C-alpha cells in the first residue's frame, strides 16, 4: 500500500464511522453544530496521530516490543489518556466555550474505539511514519463524517451553519430558505432522535451506493467471463 492509499483509505473505503461504525457515541452526541464537529475532529486528529506515533515507537524495536507486548493494553491506555488530558487542558485554556460545549465527550476520547482500534490493529505492527499517516487519514475521515452529520443536523434543525462562534462569529444564517418554504427549522434534528435519523439515512445512502457499485462490478465480471468463454468456444 502506498502512502497516499494509506492516507486516503480512512476517508471512504475504511471510514471509521460510516464503514466500521466506530466512535458513534461522540458522533451522535456532539454533532448539533458544525463548530462542535470541527472541534471534536481536531481533538481526535491530535490524539490519533500522536497515539499511533507513540504506540509505533514503543513497539517498533523488537527488544522493547517483547517487553511491552505483555502489558500493551495498560501501555496504550496510559499513552492515550495522557494525550487526551493534554487536549483537554489546551482546550480548557484556549477555547473554553467549545470545551464546555463538547463537555464529557473530550475525556471520553480515551475510550474511543477508533483510537484504541488503530493502536492495536495498525500502529503496533507498522513503522512510525506509516502509523502517523494512518492516524491522520482515519482521524480526518472521522472528522469528515461528523462534519457531514452536523451539517445536515444544523441546517435542518437550526437553519444555520456555524463554523466558529468564539470571538469572531463565522456563521451563516439560512433562515431565509425556511421563510421561503414557509416552514420553521425542524427542532427534532438537534435532538438525539435527529442524530440517529441523520446517521441512519447517510449509512443507507452509503450502503446503497456500495451495493450498486458491487453489483455493477459483478455484472462486468460476468460479462467479461461470458465474452471470454465465447472467444474460447
Amino acid at each position, binding site marked *: 500500500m502506498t502512502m497516499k492509499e494509506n492516507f486516503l483509505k480512512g476517508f471512504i473505503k475504511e471510514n471509521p464511522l460510516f464503514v466500521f461504525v466506530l466512535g458513534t457515541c461522540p458522533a451522535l452526541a456532539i454533532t448539533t453544530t458544525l463548530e462542535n464537529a470541527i472541534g471534536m475532529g481536531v481533538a481526535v486528529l491530535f490524539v490519533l496521530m500522536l497515539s499511533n506515533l507513540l504506540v509505533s515507537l514503543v513497539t517498533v524495536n523488537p527488544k522493547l516490543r517483547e517487553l511491552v507486548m*505483555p502489558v500493551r493494553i*495498560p501501555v496504550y491506555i*496510559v*499513552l492515550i489518556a*495522557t494525550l487526551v488530558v*493534554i487536549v483537554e487542558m*489546551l482546550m*480548557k485554556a484556549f477555547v473554553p466555550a467549545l470545551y464546555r460545549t463538547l463537555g464529557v465527550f473530550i475525556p471520553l476520547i480515551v475510550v474511543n474505539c477508533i483510537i484504541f482500534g488503530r493502536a492495536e490493529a495498525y500502529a503496533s505492527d507498522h513503522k512510525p511514519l506509516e502509523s502517523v499517516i494512518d492516524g491522520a487519514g482515519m482521524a480526518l475521515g472521522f472528522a469528515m463524517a461528523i462534519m457531514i452529520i452536523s451539517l445536515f443536523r444544523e441546517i435542518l434543525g437550526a437553519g444555520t451553519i456555524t463554523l466558529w462562534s468564539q470571538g469572531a462569529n463565522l456563521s451563516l444564517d439560512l433562515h431565509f430558505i425556511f421563510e421561503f418554504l414557509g416552514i420553521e427549522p425542524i427542532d427534532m434534528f438537534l435532538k438525539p432522535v435527529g442524530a440517529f435519523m441523520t446517521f441512519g439515512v447517510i449509512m443507507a445512502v452509503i450502503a446503497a451506493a456500495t451495493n450498486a457499485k458491487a453489483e455493477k462490478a459483478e455484472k462486468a465480471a460476468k460479462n467479461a467471463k461470458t465474452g471470454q468463454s465465447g472467444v474460447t468456444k
Partner: protein
Amino acid sequence: MKKGLTSGLVLLILGSICGLLLAVVNYFTAPVIAANELREKMETFRQFYPDIDAFTPDEITENLPEGIDSIYLLLDPTNNNAVAHAIYSVHSMGYKTDVEMLIAIDTDLTIKGYAFIGTGGTEGIGLNLSAVDFGMTGTLITAWATNFDTRAGATITSIGDAPARNTGVRQCFVLVAERVAMDFGR
C-alpha cells in the same frame, strides 16, 4: 517472573514520563485556565456591580464553614484596598438536590443582590427558582430570619414543594448571615 517485572518497570517508566509531560503542560495552561475562570466569575458578578472592573478581586476558599464554597472580596484600590463588597458562593440542600447561590453583600450589610447558579431538582416540577423573587434585595442580611420569612415566605409557600425548596434558599441566607456576623461582628 523476571520478564514480568521488567514489563512492569517499562510501564512504570512510561507512566512517569507521561506524568512529567502532563505536569509541563499543566504548568503552562493552569494560569490561563485560572484567568478564564476568574473572568467568567467577574462577568457573573457584573449583574450585582456593573463597575466591577474598578475593583480588585480576592477569593477566599480556606477555613470556610460547610455550605460556603468561597467568598469573593472586591477590594477598592482607591481606598487602600479596603473591602468594598463581598460575594458569597453558597449551597444548601433544597428540593432533592442542592440549591447553589451567589449572594452579594455591601459593607453596610445590605443584600445587593442574589443569583441562582444551580437549582437542580426544581425545573422538573415546573418551577425555576431564578424566576422567583424572594424580595431580599436591599434588606439587611443580619435580619435574614424576619426578612425571609415575612417577605419571601408568604408569596410562594403555597406552591407545591415550597417548604423543601424554601429551606434550601433560606439556609443559603442563614449561612451567609452567620458568616457575615463572624466576619463583621454584627
